[in-house]
């Protein structure tokens, strides 16, 4: 009887270990990591009205930085934002709003009026895309440099050096993905896929399924 009990115990342990192994390898559920808290801010948008981090809570937000005097094509930043925005209907978001925010790193020249003219000149759909900045340069540096961990520097001749990047933030204000390098899959495709992964987690991670999603986070089952 003791032997039988031991066999059962070993069997149970083996099944548990195999299940964990299978979960990690086959990743039946994929998630995006909860990387860090996105910075809080109170910026002024192209509409000359405040745009705060609180306004964007509850939806997904795609952030990027640029400045209106950046010589075209300026890393194709606007084109990628526009592509993602125009292809949102490909993603089953289930009613979760998606917002787009372009933060200018040149507040001296990029006033709300200039940002508004710029948005119109590139044909931006401003129904859910904001162009914003703040004249508090020190806080701007904190928000972009330390908060979004994105390098930029005023070269002093009207030009800025900066790392083109996109940051995806969820409805709780948590950074879920960053796009800093050119990959084989276009950034727009990856962002759209990740929006789908996030939406799936929001809709499905309830009740007992929440445990499976937390396990996916624990075992680093991250969507590529």
């Amino acid at each position: 009887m003791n032997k039988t009990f031991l066999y059962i115990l070993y069997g149970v342990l083996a099944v548990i270990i195999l299940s964990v192994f299978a979960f990690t390898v086959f990743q039946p559920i994929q998630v995006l990591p909860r990387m860090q808290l996105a910075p809080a801010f109170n910026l002024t948008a192209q509409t000359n009205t405040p745009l705060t981090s609180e306004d964007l809570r509850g939806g997904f937000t795609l952030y990027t930085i640029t400045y209106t005097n950046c010589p075209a094509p300026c890393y194709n930043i606007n084109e990628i934002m526009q592509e993602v925005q125009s292809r949102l209907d490909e993603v089953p978001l289930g009613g979760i709003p998606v917002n787009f925010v372009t933060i200018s790193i040149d507040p001296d020249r990029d006033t709300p009026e200039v940002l508004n003219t710029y948005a119109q000149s590139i044909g931006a759909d401003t129904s859910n895309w904001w162009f914003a900045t703040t004249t508090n340069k020190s806080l701007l540096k904190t928000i972009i440099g330390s908060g979004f961990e994105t390098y930029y520097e005023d070269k002093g001749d009207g030009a800025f050096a900066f790392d083109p990047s996109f940051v995806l933030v969820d409805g709780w204000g948590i950074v879920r993905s960053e796009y800093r390098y050119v990959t084989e899959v276009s950034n727009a495709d990856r962002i759209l896929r990740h929006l789908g992964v996030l939406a799936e987690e929001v809709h499905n991670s309830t009740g007992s399924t929440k445990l499976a999603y937390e396990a996916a986070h624990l075992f680093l089952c991250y969507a590529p």
Partner: protein
Amino acid sequence: MKIKIFTLVIVTILGLSAGVYFFRPHTFHGTVIQSPDLAHDFTLTSADGDVSLSDYRGKLVLIYFGYTFCPDICPATLANVGQALRDIGDSADDVQVIMISLDPERDTPEKLAQYMKHFHPSFIGVTGTPEQLAEVAALYGIYYQKTEGSVASGYLLDHTATLLVIDREGYLKLVFPFGVTVPEIADDLKYMLKQ
């Protein structure tokens, strides 16, 4: 023979259930953050001198942003945290609660110290210049803004009311939303203290 197989199946199912139950990962009540970077360090002023986040490496640090004139949300949250610490007993010695004031105009270090003692003798309140506080709040995702209050209360501050937990190594590990209960806080703290 049939009875033997039946017993074996039942025992295996029970064993599996017990295994899943005992080996299941802890389900946090707060949102788990998997940051590869240390939480932003800061140095602010308390009634007993400068306080840095890094001073408390080795302890769990709970950070809350609020202010002493806060009419409801801040005292409710701090009272819950105080009760949770009392509930976890002696291991609460390994937890440090810091409230960062968002109201440098009215919250002096002395006033903060007096206020924080109402909730738990170990709680610390810190403040700084408006610029320092704006920077720290931004980096911890805390939005705040002055709003009009009554004649009695003076102005109020709208602010993000999350409670943040920094682990013993200095990484932001958990974010509790406003409304988290005493047992939920105590449960997560107990688990983290065992790590």
